[in-house]
């Protein structure tokens, strides 16, 4: 079933700026980094596309400081972003000594729920756009968690009224590493809050001895999963090909967006 109002897009990869400046068939670009001062394609790109703020604003296990909030507001205004995205991430230690530099989930506990609810509400109050939050894949479970991820997310969205950025490969991977059917795992999540979906390819990783997200085309299986997910998300407004890497080629980007659009 195709939602005629659904935007289909990708991430802005600056090394593909020349191609993206003149591309067709892409409705929006998600911005993972601010535009570089010397990016010659930025004027054309910013004039051509709906832009979605998808930068690292902070980790909501702690309150965002004023500098980070002002940065988020400035970027949202620069992009004229219809919503602002952040992740359910806790990737650096409180003292700043250790940083994973990669999205990593919090413990799914009452204490962390309280933290994220409080800090998300505080951020939401300072933004002029809706806030949407993206789910994070976990390669392993931590025994200190008190509830399943879907339960924690249900309670978060009910408490905050924020939107859900549903990352489908993250769902797919969690299902894979827990020997569950992806569709069965998916329906546990609060799909009624989904505003945007991410779709991406996965590839074998030698360290993980299994699949992980990679800047490659989504498989037919992943596209079918995406179509199923969209049909279960009544408020979804956009689907984004989630690939942001210097190794991403224009061919992969454009073909992926085309195939996503065709699958929905």
């Amino acid at each position, binding site marked *: 079933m195709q939602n005629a109002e659904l935007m289909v897009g990708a991430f802005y990869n600056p090394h593909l700026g020349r191609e993206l400046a003149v591309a067709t068939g892409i409705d929006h670009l998600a911005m993972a980094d601010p535009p570089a001062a010397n990016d010659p394609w930025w004027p054309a790109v910013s004039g051509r596309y709906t832009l979605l703020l998808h930068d690292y604003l902070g980790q909501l296990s*702690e309150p965002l400081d004023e500098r980070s909030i002002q940065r988020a507001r400035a970027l949202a205004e620069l992009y004229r972003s219809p919503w602002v995205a952040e992740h359910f991430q*806790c990737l650096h230690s409180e003292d*700043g000594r*250790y940083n*994973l530099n990669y999205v990593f989930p919090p413990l799914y506990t009452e*204490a962390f729920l309280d933290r994220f609810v409080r800090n998300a509400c505080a951020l939401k109050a300072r933004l002029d756009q809706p806030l949407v939050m993206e789910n994070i894949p976990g390669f*392993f479970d931590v*025994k200190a968690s008190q509830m399943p991820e879907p339960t924690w997310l249900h309670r978060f969205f009910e408490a905050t009224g924020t939107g859900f950025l549903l990352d489908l490969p993250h769902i797919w991977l969690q299902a894979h590493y827990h020997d569950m059917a992806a569709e069965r795992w998916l329906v546990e999540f609060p799909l009624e809050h989904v505003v945007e979906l991410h779709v991406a390819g996965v590839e074998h990783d030698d*360290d993980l001895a299994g699949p992980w997200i990679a800047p490659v085309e989504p498989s037919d299986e992943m596209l079918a999963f995406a179509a199923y997910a969209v049909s279960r998300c009544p408020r979804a407004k956009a689907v984004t090909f989630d690939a942001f890497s210097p190794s991403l080629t224009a061919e992969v980007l454009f073909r992926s967006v085309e195939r996503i659009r065709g699958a929905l």
Partner: protein
Amino acid sequence: MPSDRALQDDVIRALADAPYRATLEWRHQGLADPDRVERYARFLARHFYYERIVHFFKYSRALARVTGRAPQAIVKSPAFDALLPTLVLGSRETAGAVARVVTAHVAAGGAPVAYLADLLRYEEAMMVVEAGPRVWRDSDDEGDAGSPKGVPAGPGERYSPETVEGTVLLDLAYDLPAVLPKLLQPWTDVPQAPQRPTTLLVARSPHGRVAVARSDESVAAVIELADGKRTLEELAQGVGLQPAELRETLQGLVDLGAVRFSTGS
């Protein structure tokens, strides 16, 4: 009983700090499947340093079609694998160890780029300076008496300038700033760098932003003598600058992140 936040930090540390991950202190907690933790830690380590190599060795990447050596290729090399049990993501020691693997790999290409050795030293310095703990959230207390953001005014103040740990002065044989932008533009013949002595100051802000500036003898002297004990007057005498000139120089260095002010002793 540790708080949830402390437990999360322990998991983060285990993923980031390979020596800690191997300790009984971590293993006896039994917080997660050790095989899964080890695998994910290795995945994170390759990702962490791949991103940094791509960023800090971008000029060597641009020269890869001449050198035949892509800097980022080392993250899948035996040399990087050998470092895995020692890695502490983001530490200066690990940044230096990884950067040395990169520079050895690129230099071994033997390409006829006259300034390649200087370039690799520059890129290595950038990557190492960036490393270390950083401020993720500004303090709510803007009146932190220990480290004012600007040069304190007036004589007799109690603050003494101190070079920030990790600040680096690079003495180069080639004027790299003249060639670096050209390397990132389309080129057919390898862009050349003027051969003239050049000193660069590489520093990092508390938030982890790296800055580079051309340096001269005065700046180098300030960096060497600013030990957190010498007062502004003593420093001015030591570097041979008038106090007003020193203040201007110090403000520039504070803005770069190279110098801060301490209460001295």
